[in-house]
């Protein structure tokens, strides 16, 4: 009896361990399978390219957000920074500058926003939630002021092709590979986990905690700048409302991907899977002709279920 009980409990423990580690990947695979079986259109190349392209922006934001959340922080400003860096990029283009200059301007805008966040969190010691809530409002405000709340159009031909074809997807994959190397194979990356896992211990262990904290917000800002110029290119316009609510999708992707909001635990590939889990959910709801209102309800419910499963496996 006991012998048998032991094998079963041993096996179920192994299964639980596997599931808890790869839960989001299993969920993503199941989701693709179900949606693929239920519709004729999901596994068409046109739809798949569409899914990749639509979710690349959120995924890039979520990559930056993963660093922030791993340290135990949060960055609510990324959606607004997408809008701001997009209009700056478009504005510089409209002013006659070359495309590379405009791209750099967009990225620099994102970096600047990240630097402001990082400085406020580390030097002023204001909680990240409050800091990035403030910069979220301010960045959006600046975007509206800069454009007079109008859309900047008439951008040169070459700009729109930047996000054409698979470019955004390739950029996204590059972002994730770099993030993965950064987290797994650099001292900075391990320090990110250390700071999020135990701030006091990290400090006493000689980790330069404030530098790490500053850097993750700067990184998240750059990611938002990158997403911002890609979105502007896709719209072929500088739209001051671009990126609204993106921060919520990005945070959802990170959390659904298994990264703890308390920091110290998570993975970048989980975030990628989380972003596409949510993206494909959106896609499926569209394919099934679910109304926009119902979509919100479904998404909210999925987020709740996913995180409560996460809590459950943590305590199991």
């Amino acid at each position, binding site marked *: 009896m006991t012998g048998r009980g032991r094998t079963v409990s041993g096996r179920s423990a192994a299964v639980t361990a596997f599931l808890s580690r790869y839960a989001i990947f299993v969920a993503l695979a199941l989701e693709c399978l179900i949606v693929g079986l239920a519709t004729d259109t999901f596994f068409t190349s046109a739809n798949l390219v569409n899914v990749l392209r639509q979710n690349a922006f959120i995924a890039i934001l979520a990559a930056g957000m993963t660093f922030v959340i791993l340290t135990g922080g949060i960055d609510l400003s990324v959606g607004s920074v997408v809008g701001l860096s997009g209009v700056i990029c478009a504005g510089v283009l409209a002013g006659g500058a070359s495309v590379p200059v405009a791209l750099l301007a967009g990225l620099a805008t994102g970096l600047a926003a990240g630097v402001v966040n990082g400085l406020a969190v580390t030097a002023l010691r204001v909680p990240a939630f409050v800091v990035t809530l403030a910069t979220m409002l301010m960045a959006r405000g600046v975007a509206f002021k800069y454009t007079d709340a109008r859309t900047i159009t008439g951008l040169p031909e070459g700009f729109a092709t930047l996000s054409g074809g698979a470019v955004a997807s390739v950029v996204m994959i590059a972002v994730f590979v770099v993030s993965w190397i950064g987290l797994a194979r650099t001292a900075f990356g391990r320090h990110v986990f250390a700071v999020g*896992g135990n701030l006091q211990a990290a400090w006493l262990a*000689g980790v330069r905690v404030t530098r790490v904290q500053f850097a993750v917000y700067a990184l998240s800002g750059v990611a938002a700048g990158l997403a911002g110029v890609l979105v502007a290119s896709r719209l072929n316009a500088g739209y001051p409302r671009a990126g609204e609510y993106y921060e919520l999708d990005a945070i959802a992707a990170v959390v659904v991907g298994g990264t703890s909001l308390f920091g110290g635990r998570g993975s970048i590939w989980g975030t990628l899977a989380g972003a596409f889990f949510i993206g494909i959910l959106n896609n499926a709801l569209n394919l099934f002709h679910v109304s926009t209102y119902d979509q919100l309800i479904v998404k909210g419910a999925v987020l709740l279920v996913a995180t409560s499963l996460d809590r459950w496996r943590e305590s199991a």
Partner: protein
Amino acid sequence: MRLAAQGLTKQYGGVTVLRDVTIEVASGEIRALVGENGAGKSTLIKILGGAVVADAGEVRLDGVPLPVGRPLAVRQRGLSIVYQEFTLVPDLTVAENVFLGREIGGAVLRGRTMRERAQRLLDELGVRVDAGAPVRGLSVAHQQMVEIARALVTEARVLILDEPSATLSGSEVDTLLGVLRRLKARGLAIIYVSHRLDEIFAVCDSVTVLRDGRHIRTAPVTTFTRESLIRDMVGRDVAEEFPARTARPGDVVLRATHLSAPPRFRDVSIDVRAGEIVGVAGLVGAGRTSAALAMIGALRSSGQIEVRGTRAAFRTPAAAIAGGLAYVTEDRKARGIFSMLGVDDNITVTHLAAFARAGLLSNTRRRSAAAAAVKAFDIRAAGLGQRAGTLSGGNQQKALVARYVVRPPAVLILDEPTRGVDVAARAEIYRVMNTLTDDGLGILMISSDLPEILGMSDRIVVMRDGCTTGVLARHEATAERVMALATAA
């Protein structure tokens, strides 16, 4: 007969942590529960308290089975546990904490009644604490007493204390033992978990020894000697509690002069030589840890620090480590270990740069360095990736020390290096300290454990109320002299 547990067995993921353990404790008895970390004490306590469900066996109180898996119901039946980690809410008052979850009154609480009853309880325990004071301002020892008062408020008949003395200093331990005797006289059955043999022989009536999840022996305390108790716990002879020290002190590697950070400590001057262990003795709250934190730049202070003869003004622990001065915390759980990260990450986190080439870490070199440390310090882990939070206290401590000597500093400050560590791991930590000093490292060891101070230090600095009150050479140090300097004259 009060508490009787029969044939308790528990497995976790195929590993048996408790095997057919039977324990009976009578009213008016203080039972010591001893064993190395990992012997199964915590699991046994949790099963008794209803927090963990046993795979087999049952627990009865006065012949009636206790509810299984329902800690609150067990508590209401009269069995209370004071856990090692405090569960007090700092910003509530003592009385509010004592009655937390059992408040008197309906929608409107009867604050004065609770306060009076809490005060009476504390007075009965002989503890001078104001029930209206917030817990935040209390000493660790007094917080401990509040925990005990809280356990007693439910009319406890069985009280289990899990290493209550781990964070207490000498006189505070005496107070605690006095409280236990008083409770015993009131007819409580008490199970007392401790690694400190002195206390066991001082206060306990009987001893139950666990080893590797098995019950080894239960007998009156008078039938044990220190040696036989240690032998039962570890299953072999631990040759010497403290290894012989053959110090050959070299040059001064750490010189702190006139270090002050009022009100925590003032005018502290300490020298440590290469190859030397300098013990810092004193009561909890004497300012020893604050002084150490000031040395590594974790606390602002005035005064001077020299490491290897070079003036230093460290502003952060990182700068101190770079300058050859490392500090191993007394608070392993809260400020030491990364419980969610692997053993390898825990060991290599401080000196990651040593494993990087062009910014990229070599995981091979990192793992081999971690593996070497695991071997050198005899850290018992299932693998390098095992989460540090799941290691025993002793192995966590060894991993923590290993972290700072991946690249040996000139001086290592060890703050309570064997707190909450079992006998065998303790001996290994002492062995490691000897190896390090043989290699020319200087060690500054803060300890509240008097035998440890006397057994390991080449010189002893004693602090009281933030000031150094004396320095004793190894040959002139006795327990009495250290205590005399540590307590008010």
